[in-house]
């Protein structure tokens, strides 16, 4: 399936990104070994100048990553018609065993690149390059992830065969499905999923407000927003999607993006991704505040990011509540509340 236009575009983007970041790896190693700010030597000056190039490159990679993530999912949805049994993106991703790993790797890469750019942004505020070694050590870990994500994507597209019969969301995410992750997510009881989501979001808001008001607990906030991402996704797959589709066994996280459901997925995912990226960034920035030259700048960046992150989570929560309220589906009758009550009481004990 390599000769598919969108696939060529995606591979072009991921492989060139890998090549560009890979090309900066030797530089990162050189920088880690030779960096000496006290020196006014021309070699040091060259190192400093090269950092501008690397920053710009990673920014570009992040943008490309974001765009190709969207394109990847979109295309998976579009290509579903090519696979027997596939009705949406899940089917396409299931058509080869590297499908979901490629998606997960690309999502991870997005957050890693965002985290690196936060680090870069904060470091550039300090007059003595306080984080330069951390930053380039981090780049050395970012590069292999990027390479792995590209390889997974390549393997996935190489493995795609249009005649493969794949399973789709209706079987995949209900009872006897195939993937472990998707299945266990979908099997999550609705009540539990919603309670987990509420508790996590409450924790996020509490920690975020504490940080914004009192200036403490930035790292905790970062960790909380990182944790909120999978919880929110689980809630989307297990429960929110059901409310949107109004079918008790339809759990697809991708169909939400379709026009039939008013593109409501964007209203959920964009705030969620942005909020998580900003939240992780806030945690990282706050961790940097212990460097003398960054005390003020890092704190400012952390607050700014935390503010955006909170706004994102709030938007996600509001959209989620609207979806539940608007839906004609009623999941929780009086009896359905019992396990929930048991869970809450049991948890309180």
């Amino acid at each position, binding site marked *: 399936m390599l000769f598919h236009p969108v696939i060529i575009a995606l591979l072009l983007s991921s492989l060139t990104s890998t090549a560009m970041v890979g090309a900066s790896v030797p530089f990162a190693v050189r920088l880690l070994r030779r960096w000496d700010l006290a020196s006014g*030597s021309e070699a040091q000056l060259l190192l400093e100048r090269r950092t501008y190039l690397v920053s710009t490159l990673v920014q570009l990679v992040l943008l490309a990553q974001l765009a190709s993530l969207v394109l990847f999912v979109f295309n998976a949805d579009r290509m579903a018609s090519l696979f027997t049994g596939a009705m949406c993106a899940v089917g396409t991703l299931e058509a080869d065993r590297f499908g979901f790993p490629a998606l997960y790797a690309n999502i991870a890469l997005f957050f890693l690149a965002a985290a690196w750019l936060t680090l870069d942004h904060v470091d550039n505020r300090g007059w003595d390059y306080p984080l330069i070694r951390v930053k380039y050590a981090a780049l050395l870990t970012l590069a292999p992830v990027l390479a792995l994500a590209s390889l997974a994507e390549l393997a996935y597209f190489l493995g795609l065969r249009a005649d493969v019969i794949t399973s789709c969301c209706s079987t995949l995410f209900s009872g006897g499905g195939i993937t472990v992750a998707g299945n266990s997510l979908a099997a999550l009881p609705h009540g539990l999923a919603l309670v987990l989501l509420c508790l996590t979001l409450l924790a996020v808001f509490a920690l975020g407000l504490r940080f914004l008001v009192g200036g403490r607990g930035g790292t905790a906030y970062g960790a909380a927003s990182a944790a909120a991402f999978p919880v929110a996704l689980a809630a989307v797959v297990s429960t929110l999607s059901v409310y949107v589709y109004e079918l008790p066994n339809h759990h697809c996280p991708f169909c939400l993006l379709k026009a039939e459901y008013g593109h409501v997925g964007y209203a959920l995912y964009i705030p969620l991704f942005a909020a998580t990226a900003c939240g992780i960034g806030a945690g990282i920035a706050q961790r940097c505040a212990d460097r003398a030259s960054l005390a003020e700048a890092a704190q400012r960046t952390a607050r700014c990011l935390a503010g955006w992150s909170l706004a994102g989570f709030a938007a996600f929560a509001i959209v989620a509540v609207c979806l539940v309220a608007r839906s004609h589906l009623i999941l929780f009758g009086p009896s359905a509340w019992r396990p929930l009550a048991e869970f809450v009481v049991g948890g309180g004990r």
Partner: protein
Amino acid sequence: MIHLSDVRKVFNQGRPNEVWALNGINLTLRQGGATVFRGPSGSGKTTLLTLVGCLARPSSGRVRLKDRDISGLPERFLTEIRRSTFGFVFQNFNLLSGLSAIQNVMIPAYPRGLPHKALRRRAMALLDMLDMGDKAEAETRWLSGGEAQRIAIARALINDPEVVIADEPTANLDSGLSAQFLAIAGRLKRDGKTLLVTSHDPFVCEAALVDRVVTLHDGRIVEAG
């Protein structure tokens, strides 16, 4: 205000054409007043001004600006200091061709993100002060030497710097225009700006407004004035 201790600057280090442009400079410059750096070409006076003006870093030694050591600062921060503290008038003015006079004046302020209208007003006020108001929209390549220099001065002043640095300001001017430059320099000095000028023009070195003349030779100070 500016203090240099044992400052050296080398070009092409480690190569056959290695040059020590500055060789152990110790100098203190106070706020206000006008200082002229004198010396034959190649004596290092321009290099000295690039170090003082944060255009370059010394190869060794320390440069302190208002008690802050700036010799080891990365370019990013040097630029910030340069932008807010120093205004430059270059020897051949270095205006951007193809742009109007007023655009040239506003260029140093673009990265600061000031409101465009306020910025333009300020540029216009500077041009008016230098009697160049009617040439604001003229393209720079049609300006005479004296006019181009006044545009360059206005550009140096747009960010309201404390120090104005002029490199051989009278080299391309006849005596009438040189006198005009000195008049402008006198006005800047009265306004409290610190003036740092390189020149080997006796007309400048012996001018009444000059408080101090520093003489350089072969990268060393031979007379600190």
